[in-house]
């Protein structure tokens, strides 16, 4: 369970500081699929970045399973990203000089898993996203949809509790986007992880349990879908 308590984010600027988030309080249930929607610039990415520890809130508090992250340092966040938080981005963010399998194996290598398990795991996860036949391909040789699948496999490899996805379909055509959405939804159901996804896509709503709509740095509406 993730709780945000009056979280604000202000980007400092000498003359025009930007308030990207304003007193955001919300709860995300474990195992749920939550959508983050709203017009461009409303603060979705900012929120996801705070949850991934890529940026720090200006005030307020974020709790993971009742654990406060208020006094987390860089090392604590790193530990969290190694075992509990996976991230997916609009621009896939694969490392171009690593093969698909290596990209997926990388987070496991970084956290120092036993060597013999890593490759097995990487292959298994890639097969699960339907890329068993593209193991040795470099990202440059993959299509956008395939790259996003590799990115999902990479996030999935560490068996995270929380998956943060920032417009994962934003750079794909709608057909491929549908496929990716389906894949994400089925992964969520299958492994019981919590998925928080920022998107402009209306198609995503059918897969979601909860839709949070933001406007001007604030939450406008929280909509439960049964």
């Amino acid at each position, binding site marked *: 369970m993730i709780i945000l308590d009056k979280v604000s984010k202000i980007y400092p600027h000498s003359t025009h500081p930007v308030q990207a988030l304003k007193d955001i309080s919300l709860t995300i249930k474990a195992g749920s699929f939550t959508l983050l929607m709203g017009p461009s610039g409303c603060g979705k*990415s900012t929120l996801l*970045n705070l949850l*991934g520890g*890529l*940026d720090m809130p200006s005030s307020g508090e974020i709790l993971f399973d009742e654990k406060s992250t208020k006094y987390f340092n*860089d*090392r604590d966040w*790193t530990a969290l*990203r*190694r*075992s509990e938080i*996976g*991230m997916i*981005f609009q*621009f896939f*963010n*694969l*490392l*171009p*000089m*690593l093969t698909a399998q*290596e990209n997926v*194996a*990388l*987070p496991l*290598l*970084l*956290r120092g898993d036993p*060597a013999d398990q*890593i*490759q097995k795991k990487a292959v298994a996860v890639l097969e699960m996203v339907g890329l068993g036949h593209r193991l040795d391909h*470099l*990202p*440059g040789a993959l299509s956008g949809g395939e790259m996003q699948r590799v990115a999902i496999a*990479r*996030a999935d490899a*560490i068996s995270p509790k929380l998956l943060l996805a920032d417009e994962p379909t934003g750079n794909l055509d709608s057909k491929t986007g549908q496929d990716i959405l389906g894949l994400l939804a089925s992964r969520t159901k299958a492994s019981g992880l919590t998925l928080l996804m920022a998107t402009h896509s209306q198609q995503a709503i059918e897969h979601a349990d909860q839709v949070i709509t933001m406007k001007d740095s604030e939450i406008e509406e929280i909509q439960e879908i049964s």
Partner: protein
Amino acid sequence: MRQFILLKFISLRHLVREKRTWLTLIGVALGISVFVSIRIANQSVLNAYHQSVDAFTGKSTVEIVGRSGALDENILKTLRNEAAITTIAPIVQTVLPMSTPTTSQGEMLLFMGVDLFQERDFRNFNVVGEDDKPLDMSGAFEVLLNPDSALLTEQFASRYGLKVGDNFSVRMEGKPLEFKVAALLTGDIAQTRDGNIAIIDIASAQWRFQKLGQLDRIDLITDEEISVESIISRIEKSLGGDVLVRRPQQRNRQIEKMLFAFQMNLTALSAISLFVGLFLIYNTLLVSVAHRRKEIGLLRALGVDRAQIFGLFTIEGMVIGTVGGFFGVVIGSVLARWVVQVLSKTVTSLYVAIPPTPFSLPLSLFMEGLAIGVLVSTFSSLYPAWQAAQLRPREALEGIFGSEVSRINHQKLLCLSLGSGLLSFIFSQMPMAWGFSWNGYVASGLLLMAFSLIVPTTILLFSKAVRLLSSQSSPSWRLAQGHLEQAIRRNGPTISAFMGALAMMISVVIMIESFRTTVVLWIDQTIQSDILGFPASYMVSDSDETLPRDMLDQIEKMDEVKAVDGYRSRMILFRDESVELVGRDLAIHAEHSKYLFRTGKSVEVIHKAIAQREVLISEVLANRFQIKEGDTVQVPTPQGNVPFEIGGVFYDYGTEGGKLVIDRAQLIQYWDDSHIDVIAIYLGENEDPTSVRSKLLVKWGSSSGLAFTTQGPFKDEIMAIFDQTFLITYALEWIAIVVALLGIANTLFVSILERKREIGILRSIGGSQAQVVRVILVEAFYMGVIGNIIGLICAFFLSLLLIYVINKASFGWTLQFHFPPMIILHSFLLAIGTALLAGYLPARKAAQTDLKEAIAYE
């Protein structure tokens, strides 16, 4: 105008904002500073040298010197009958050490014995008597008539606290020789040799320096109406072949030639840093082009044309070059102060006495430094600018992420490398010209080029090998390797520059080590005497002080002594060039010591030389005059030319221009010269050199200015001089390494800018700061290893060029190639240490990358 707007809005902001611009600037400034400082130092030394020469030469148009050494004063009579000669100024000169204060090694004082009445036509000086009253010539003449009287320069006198009427003494043959300060000298001549000049009457000089009836030189002023050449040939005809008649300028030509070669070598060495600096600008701009591809695409899309893009980058390069050049000149002039000191010391000990050189920075050199900066930077920015201009707007806008990999044509590079290597070999086989091994340097440049060209391919192979070898469990190694391979285009020039600097450094070390090993070997084999005795001033290059003549007999009579060898060296004109002639007791040398002959056993060759009255020559001399064993050469003696057969050619690393060696008996027979410069003392079995040395010291006393050293310290002394000679070389090399280090740091910094995103990704999937640091450091490590592997191989060939082509041509010495195995370890430590050092700051910066920004945008 539009170009100006581009510059103002784009270039200036990039240049000022980006930290690596500063790194590049420092590198370029350092590179130029080295070059400039050597130029300044060379120039200052040359100026000092010319100044002293000019003041000496004065207004004379022709000079006469004896081929065998001294001149017979009787030829003055013949000269007086020559109508075309307006004035004749005979000169007797000698250099002796001051003996006050007695304890320390006194300064060297040049005595010029002159005919004062003739002198005023030649040299510019004034004489000041007591109470600072100027004396006219006859007044000066009066005061000099006394054989004890000498004129000292004001500077020198005040340095020693001497006033008119005071006495001072110099040392000759172990005894003080006293003079009285008759008056003081001012004017041009007083500036030469830093004022260490004394003028005395020529007759007193002949008498007091035991040169009765002899002259060292005759200066002439000739009739302006008649051509100097025809007068020279007339005088030559009337005086016969024993004298050399020449223009005074010719006297210094030989020294100038050697100085020129020496300075060219230094300049070439200093050009290394310049070369590395050039690489640095090239690299910076190339990276800048890659980094700003999008911006270029955008500008093109907005209507900026190719030529403007080209101009943009060229001008950016020029700005770096100009600013770098400016600081280079400033740093260079600071550096030069030190270089001038070391250089004038080295030149004094190797070639010719020059006064402690005042440092000056003429405007021309300042401008030259700037010009070099601009030229170098323009030149090195041409290719990157061209590349930028070639970018198509659409391609450029698509960005570079991951698209750099495949476009290197390895086959073409390897062919070019091979061609360059081949050319290098061809050049190495060509003859040198202008007294300097131009072909050796061209060959070295080509060799470096050949090895630079294989760098990209090596990176690829290395990267493939690492990929196979590195276990799957180590992400840093794999990531660093992946990046290394991906960015070959950027890493290539950096590694090349680093490799080049290392190769030059290592090859020079190999050369010096070979040189050193050869010299040590030579000393060990040829310096066998237990004790050496010589005037303390002997170690100063131009002293004429000799040992007391009775010393040889007295030492020989000592119980502990088995044998003594009296060694005398003097200058003669061999084939119109000044060379060293040595007379020594060859029989004793054969029995107790040896020469390292090119062919034949030392004992046999020397004994044959004694029996058949042959001459032995050093290798340098043989190379210089293209003569060899068995040839007969004419050696000028006071009794005319005497034919000598060359009995052997021996290796010798002690004299710059080479030497001729004959038996002492012949030196006495032909030259009537029984002086001794050095005495080599061989002790009986079981004698202790140290106690015998103490005994000798007691016997002759410290006031005699004599030095006795045992074998060990003497060898050390020689090696100390040797090391001093290479001091600048080492310093230059280190600076080149520093410049290369900046290059690596620069590349890594850029690498981080470009990899912000990658680092962000790494961090977002659980990479820690330490892991990011490690990836960057591993990449730096790879760069160091690759640079060093190629650098070592390149250095091996480069050192062959240095030893067998450049050194051989410049100095005529054959060195034994000696590859110190430890250098492999040392160079690896150096290369990797350097690379890691250069990588550390960028790595730290990388770890602190702003994550959200890094992954946010394409």
